[in-house]
């Protein structure tokens, strides 16, 4: 399949006229028609004739200086505004909401010549870890369709794994890129807070929300990040920090000078044994590449869920206050039970008499997390952690037990309050064939270092090349 190729390989093939954008689109739509009915990854599939028209234009326009993303089919989590196209956040509250403007990340990709083919299923408003909190029916895992794809950016991850698009843009507030990336055997990056503009992205928890790339490989994510990162005057929280040439820098690393820390709290009780084993084997693999491995301790991590489930619901109760069905969409009675719970917890935590005990306490906890990470990064350069405590759950399980659902985020909720970047990448499979991912966490704005370590790992492993049987059969 053409879609097995990396972005760099595809860009080269397009430039050398070995194949065309039209060929890529034809292949994507063929796979989508065959596989999507089994996994339900899309909310909106752009009409093929419209997409083919753009692909023809791209083929005609291509020059040697075109972006590596030029002419490549991509997908967006349905949380990004796309002028003239439905943007639903997977919620009936936004029924019929046709965007009136473009999110910056979408505009940047259009400017680079990339081609949008669909807007993807997700947990409504980003509220969830299994992609079952959606008004568009759950996304199924392409490695086992009796299981969930993960969330909240589940549609993106499942579609990329199943070769329906070359890359996608997800959104991560407490693991929403990394969790589905690891459950679908793809690579995904939660960027440093402010690295990519949030303008035009439907807000979940504004001080945690990050916009990031999802793709088959680390180097694909590096190429996408290069295109979407950078200063945007429309987002005041966006950083002026210069954007390095991530792709060019992929090999600029001295492994023997890089210390990788394993926080012991992440490898204790509650972690599935197969995930523990795979992550430890990955650490050994990195060690054999020359990286120095060091066990460290980060006791504050234990309080991750407590801080997250106070601040994120508080911010979401405020952000979702604007949905009143007057200017667009339907009324507030259409929020799902999961979203109601989060809005109500936030409302409670912010209400008179409880503000100091809950919201303020959590914001103080946030300061302690920042200190905990600062301390960890005096002992190592990169942290290696699991992404999820267990493999993808069976469909319906998290719906039956919504409280267990919250615990899936245990390893991914502490980075967002701190703002640090984290790269999730494949590191194995369970005995039953379910994907396992790990995450590499760095200091603020060290995406380049995370890419370098991740890329080094992907040069000597082939987990990321294993496709779901579903498409082999298709």
């Amino acid at each position, binding site marked *: 399949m053409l879609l097995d190729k990396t972005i760099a390989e595809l860009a080269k093939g397009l430039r050398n006229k070995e194949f065309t954008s039209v060929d890529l689109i034809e292949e994507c739509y063929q796979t989508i028609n065959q596989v999507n009915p089994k996994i339900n990854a899309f909310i909106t599939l752009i009409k093929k004739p419209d997409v083919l028209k753009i692909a023809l234009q791209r083929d005609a326009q291509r020059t040697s200086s075109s972006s590596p993303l030029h002419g490549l089919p991509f997908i967006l989590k349905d949380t990004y505004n796309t002028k003239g196209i439905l943007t639903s956040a997977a919620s009936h509250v936004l029924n019929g909401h046709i965007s009136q403007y473009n999110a910056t990340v979408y505009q940047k990709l259009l400017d680079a010549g990339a081609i949008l083919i669909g807007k993807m299923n997700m947990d409504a408003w980003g509220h969830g870890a299994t992609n079952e909190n959606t008004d568009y029916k759950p996304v199924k895992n392409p490695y086992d369709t009796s299981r969930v794809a993960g969330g909240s950016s589940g549609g993106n991850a499942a579609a990329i794994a199943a070769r329906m698009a070359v890359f996608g843009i997800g959104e991560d507030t407490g693991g929403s890129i990394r969790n589905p990336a690891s459950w679908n055997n793809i690579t995904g990056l939660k960027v440093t807070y402010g690295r990519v503009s949030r303008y035009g992205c439907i807000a979940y928890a504004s001080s945690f929300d990050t916009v990031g790339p999802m793709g088959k490989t680390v180097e694909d994510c590096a190429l996408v990040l290069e295109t979407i990162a950078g200063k945007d005057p429309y987002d005041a929280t966006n950083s002026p920090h210069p954007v390095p040439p991530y792709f060019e820098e992929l090999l600029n690393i001295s492994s023997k000078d890089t210390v990788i820390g394993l926080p012991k709290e992440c490898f204790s009780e509650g972690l599935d044994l197969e995930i523990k084993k795979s992550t430890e084997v990955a650490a050994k693999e990195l060690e054999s590449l020359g990286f120095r491995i060091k066990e460290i301790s980060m006791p504050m991590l234990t309080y991750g869920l407590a*801080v997250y489930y106070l601040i994120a619901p508080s911010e979401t109760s405020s952000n979702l206050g604007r949905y009143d069905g007057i200017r667009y969409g339907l009324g*507030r009675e259409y929020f799902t039970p999961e979203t109601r719970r989060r809005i109500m917890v936030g409302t409670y935590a912010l209400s008179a008499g409880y503000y100091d005990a809950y919201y303020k306490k959590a*914001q103080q906890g946030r300061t302690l997390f920042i200190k905990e990470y600062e301390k960890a990064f005096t002992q190592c350069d990169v942290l290696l952690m699991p992404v999820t405590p267990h493999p993808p759950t069976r469909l319906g399980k998290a719906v039956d037990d919504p409280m267990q659902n919250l615990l899936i985020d245990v390893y991914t909720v502490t980075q967002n309050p701190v703002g640090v970047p984290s790269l999730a990448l494949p590191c194995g499979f369970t005995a039953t064939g379910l994907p396992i991912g790990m995450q590499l966490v760095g200091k603020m704005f060290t995406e380049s270092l995370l890419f370098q370590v991740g890329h080094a790992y992907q040069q000597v492993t082939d987990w990321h090349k294993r496709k779901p049987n579903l498409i082999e059969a298709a």
Partner: protein
Amino acid sequence: MKNKTTFSAADVHHIAQLANIPVTEAEEKKLETELGFIIDLVNQLQEVDTTGVEPTHQVTGQINVFREDEVDEERMLVQEEALRNAKNTHDGYFVVDAIFEEE
């Protein structure tokens, strides 16, 4: 497992009202337990000593981000566009529910 934190029907009703979320009586009953579970979970934080710790509100490292006070026509919607997604409009305006009831 029984929650340590308990919410009464009246508590849930009050929070729902503050959040402007319509909930049925059956939903209220479920929420009593569910909200209790989440508050139990976040209450773990009470073990942490935060005396004298400054709260963190944002992590951008930026202070006072300004822009020129100029109209950006790129970001303007014409009236027709702005109203296009609304269910109820009247003479170029959004129609909203009355807030004050008539005598």
